[in-house]
């Protein structure tokens, strides 16, 4: 007899969390559950589908971990946006004198 797949539904306020942060968090848990993500009104709805047999307790723990991961991912997005100009500056400076980037046109075109 086939075991019924367990699901947990979570809602995130789209004014608070970005969709990309939620998608990234879902990817990180791809080995534990698949996620159906949809937007309804001002909420991002995530239906977590646990495919391999798991206890209710471990499903709830994973859902909690997922919520923390969404928070982490959201902070990462914020940090990335805030530091983008200086990140580009550092990268440009790091490779400015290496001779790796050539302004010469490619011959033989």
């Amino acid at each position, binding site marked *: 007899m086939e075991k019924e797949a367990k699901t947990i539904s979570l809602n995130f306020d789209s004014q608070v969390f970005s969709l990309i942060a939620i998608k*990234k968090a879902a*990817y*990180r*848990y*791809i*080995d*534990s559950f698949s996620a159906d993500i949809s937007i309804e009104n001002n909420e991002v709805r995530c239906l977590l589908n646990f495919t391999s047999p798991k206890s209710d307790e471990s499903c709830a723990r994973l859902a909690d971990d997922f919520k923390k991961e969404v928070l*982490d*991912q959201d*902070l*990462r997005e*914020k*940090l*990335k946006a*805030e*530091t983008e100009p*200086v*990140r580009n*500056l*550092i*990268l440009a*400076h*790091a*490779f400015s004198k*290496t*001779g*790796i980037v050539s302004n010469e046109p490619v011959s033989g075109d």
Partner: protein
Amino acid sequence: MSQFQAIEFYKTSKSSYRLLPFRFIPLDEERYVLTNMAGEYLVSVRDKLSDLLQHKLSNDDPTYIELRARHFLIDEDSSIAPELLSIKLRTRYDRLAEFTGLHIFVVTLRCEHSCPYCQVSRQSEDKLRYDMSPEIAIGAIDLALRSPSRNIKIEFQGGEPLLNFELIKFIVLEAKKKNQQRGKNLAFVIATNLALVSQEILKFCREHSILISTSLDGPKDLHNTNRPRPGGNSYEKTIEGIKLVREMLGRDQVSALMTTTEASLNRVKEIIDEYLAQDFNGIFLRPLSPYGFAIKTKSYRAYNAERWLDFYKEGIEYIIELNRQNINFMEYYAATVLKKMLTSEDPGYVDLMSPSGIGIGAVVYNYDGSVYASDESRMLAEMGEEKFKLGKVLENSYEQIFTSPNLLDPLEESFAYSVPMCNDCAFEPYCGADPVFHYALYKDYVGRKPESEFCSRNMETFRFLIKKMEGDRFVRQLFTKWANN
């Protein structure tokens, strides 16, 4: 009334710092690891991290001082930080411009051992079929010397390369002759089980400063079970060989590598003791690779990443205890990772490079003239998968080989800066892309990282090493010594 302003007057306001780019990942239930662009790390509790990101961290907080010193934030007293980060970042990627330094010549596939997990060996007397020809060798030398790298290391592999020692001699002499005008730093290594080593062979090695790399899997019974040969005396031959090499070439001219089979898993202390007994300064605890006969004979699947990590951690704990007793001994994989964590240098270890080290760090000239992007790539080819074959020595030019789509595609696709989950992983500066491993297991250069054994094994290794350092001052000092070795 005081003549002076209160201390608060002189403090920088809480929001006057700017964040520099960094990434973070949980270390355990309470703590996070933060890494900056140059790979410097810091451990912090979640509340501090959250305060930092919200610009609420006070400049007299000890964490603030550490974050500023390690270039995670910038304020009016640290305006030079972006420039310092750039220099460190450039140092980290310095090897890229050098291009291929390691050139592996597979001089024969023939071997007198029949190790069940070996990827590439043949029990055959058919020299014509499995030996590299002098014509292919000359072509491969020309390709190797075309590399822009100032330091060229030629490593002889097999099968058992000493079965074709005449060709090794030919390659060494020819490479030296051809290098006279180029003036590169040439180095040679023979990777051998030492069963066939002789004084005559070592005399040549001494004349040409050739290093020896051998295999030692542990105590006699374990080594001989792992490495069957006629007479069942692989261990005895290896130990005799090591002694002879040391007598004729010098103590530090021979190194050894071990392979972890299922039979090794409960014996890590005995394995380390064997290395100590043979007077080695360290050991490289490495798992089996998912290629060739290791897959066919199910050796690879005999244990998973979790079991290997238990073995590895037990080994590290034991080595730390040995060092506490003033016995100097090192674990080389940890030392490689620690160099990335604690210095700005990149050790150039192919498996832990991004962009991947295939082709860029190492290249393989197989006995039949096929050129592969790495040693693992030719092992994969032995399983019938030629996804990483770059061309043929006698048929393709240097340009055709090193711009082959079989090299450029996996390099581009697996670059960790652009891979889901790796791009915001705090461990990315320490980790690698390894498209060959992922292709072998998942038929994809990248794989899904949450399901990747490479990812889970390395993430846990990084966490383990950081926790050890954070919890014990002695370990911190020891690991710093390993990193700077």
